């Protein structure tokens, strides 16, 4: 059979060269050839490998529609939510390198250990502290108020860890609370119903808190939900400074 150059091109385009991290902290990339499909996501690629080529591959996902925040991985060196990342966007040359999220311990293959990420949400006082009971009337928060608008800009976080995996300050200072936890703290500092403002500002001040941010803007650049944790961290810096000046910190 004679293969024309055009057919050869089509054949190349119809498969993807995929290198997938295997192992834990120590390991190596394993190569797979995966059929190329229209509208294929990176998560589709990983799922194909696990279901057809290598059943022992460990990875994590749940909703597949960008809501649960489970499937973040490092794709061609950049942290991304794989379920909403189309292969077209990231594999112009038909090759993919898929690794677990950076800055977190690796459990196995593509699964990062998220425990410290969520422990830091707790350390940043990321839980709402109510000031009313069910017997009180609803709190009235004007949608157009500055505080409510600041919350709107930051509230849609799905906890995927893309910002945490992208942040060099986390790499340099493993105690750093990280963009997501500080962004969460910022939404609560802006919440007029919350009763733990002082404790929260104390929790996010200091070497491992908002002052450690170097304004690289990597979290803002990579957040799949379009949130700017850098903006929230800057707000926390101002709030912490104001509280310190008033002697409330």
């Amino acid at each position: 059979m004679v293969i024309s150059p055009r057919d050869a091109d089509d054949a190349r385009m119809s498969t993807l060269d995929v290198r997938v991290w295997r192992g834990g902290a120590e390991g190596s990339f394993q190569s797979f050839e995966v059929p190329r499909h229209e509208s294929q996501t990176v998560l589709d690629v990983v799922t194909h490998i696990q279901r057809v080529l290598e059943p022992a591959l460990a990875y994590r996902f749940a909703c597949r529609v960008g809501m649960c925040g489970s499937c973040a991985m490092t794709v061609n060196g950049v942290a991304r939510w794989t379920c909403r990342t189309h292969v077209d966007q990231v594999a112009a040359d038909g090759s993919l390198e898929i690794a677990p999220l950076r800055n977190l311990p690796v459990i196995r293959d593509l699964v990062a250990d998220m425990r410290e990420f969520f422990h830091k949400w707790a350390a940043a006082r990321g839980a709402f502290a109510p000031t009313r009971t069910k017997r009180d009337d609803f709190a009235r928060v004007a949608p157009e108020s500055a505080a409510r608008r600041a919350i709107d800009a930051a509230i849609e976080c799905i906890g995927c860890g893309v910002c945490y995996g992208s942040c060099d300050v986390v790499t340099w200072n493993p105690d750093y609370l990280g963009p997501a936890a500080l962004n969460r703290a910022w939404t609560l500092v802006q919440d007029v119903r919350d009763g733990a403002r002082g404790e929260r500002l104390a929790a996010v001040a200091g070497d491992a808190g908002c002052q450690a941010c170097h304004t690289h803007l990597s979290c803002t650049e990579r957040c799949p939900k379009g949130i700017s944790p850098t903006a929230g961290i800057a707000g926390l810096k101002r709030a912490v400074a104001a509280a310190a000046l008033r002697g409330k910190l």
Partner: protein
Amino acid sequence: MRRGNDLRARNHPGYWAFVVHRVSGLALAAFLPLHFWALGRALEGAGRLESFLRWTDQPLVKFAEWGIVLLLAAHFAGGLRILALEFLSWRDWQKSLAAVAAAFSLAAALAFALGL
């Protein structure tokens, strides 16, 4: 053990703005002792300072001066950018701010180079 990021993750305007600000700051800090040493020539008399200043008229030193002006402009604009990020309310114009800082730095350095 955990791995950090490589250049693929860092290659975006905000990170480059950070690198320029940091490198220009370190380079200017390294230049400061030389600056003070040059001023110190004056303590040894006008002649010593004058002969040093004549030495700086060499083309290569002039070129290095242009580099210092570029570093100063970049560090100044980068600092203004950080102040704007930290103190102004903002959402989506961080990249424009980095571009303005870069444009200001190059304009200042070019103006100096043309004025030489």
